[in-house]
């Protein structure tokens, strides 16, 4: 995925209402009326959010009779989670190892200065 597209995805995900809409769409396609139901928000306001999600490629929209149906597109979301997940995983794994190392160093060194004989 192009990086400007990634920025659009993150911009779209930054809003709690839009995240709630995506979570709803994970359960199946929905119309604007169905989506605005749980929110204290007008249908035009919801439509604006849907446009942002559509621009980011996170949803696609089709027609069912007179209603427009929104559909969750999983791919951009997957790319977005891939992007940060490997970085997060790298640091979480490192930090867990550092926790262990710190515990070990504190147990083995009764006196804080004892370390110097090993490394200086």
């Amino acid at each position, binding site marked *: 995925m192009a*990086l400007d597209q*990634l*920025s659009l995805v*993150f*911009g779209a995900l*930054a809003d709690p209402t839009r*995240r*709630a809409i*995506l*979570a709803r769409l*994970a359960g199946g396609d929905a119309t604007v009326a169905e989506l605005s139901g749980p929110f204290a928000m007008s249908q035009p306001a919801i439509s604006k959010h849907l446009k942002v999600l559509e621009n980011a490629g996170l949803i696609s929209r089709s027609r069912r009779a007179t209603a427009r149906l929104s559909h969750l597109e*999983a791919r951009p*979301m*997957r790319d977005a*989670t*891939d*992007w*940060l*997940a*490997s*970085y*997060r*995983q*790298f*640091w*979480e*794994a*490192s*930090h867990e*190892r*550092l*926790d*262990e*190392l*710190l*515990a070990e*160093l*504190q147990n083995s060194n009764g006196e*804080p200065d004892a*370390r110097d004989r*090993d*490394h200086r």
Partner: protein
Amino acid sequence: MPETEITAEPGTSQVVVSREFDAPRDLVFRCFTDPDLIPRWLGPRELTTRVEEYDLKDGGRYRYVHVDAEGNEYAFRGVFHGDPAPELTVQTFEFEGMPGHVALEAVTMTESGGRTRVRTLSSFQSVEDRDGIIASGMEVGVRDSDERLAELLTELR
């Protein structure tokens, strides 16, 4: 269980990684700066880390290499700016796989009640640099992406 907090605002060129450790600041600083200790924690367990240079002083250079199970090597290097100290260490950071895309890192450590919070602010040259380096330089031990998507969606609910 302390959590690694990562903040990467969309459209900016910075990343902040923050984490608290149950240890005094001097000891945490030593783990970050002692070339014998760095390989014991930096990087996931499936990588081995080799510190080739670590000259902890104003203008000193560092270079380390991560080696994965297949023997692929990923080298990183940089230079310290100012005297490195627990309060503030400023250094450049470059993934040698993307030469010239150098980031500036500021590491601060604050101690409170025997615990130490480490905050690393990385400033890249552009949003594209940040996103590209994060996407390409850390591709290790990634879990199945569908599984992560499912987790994200659960989180969003």
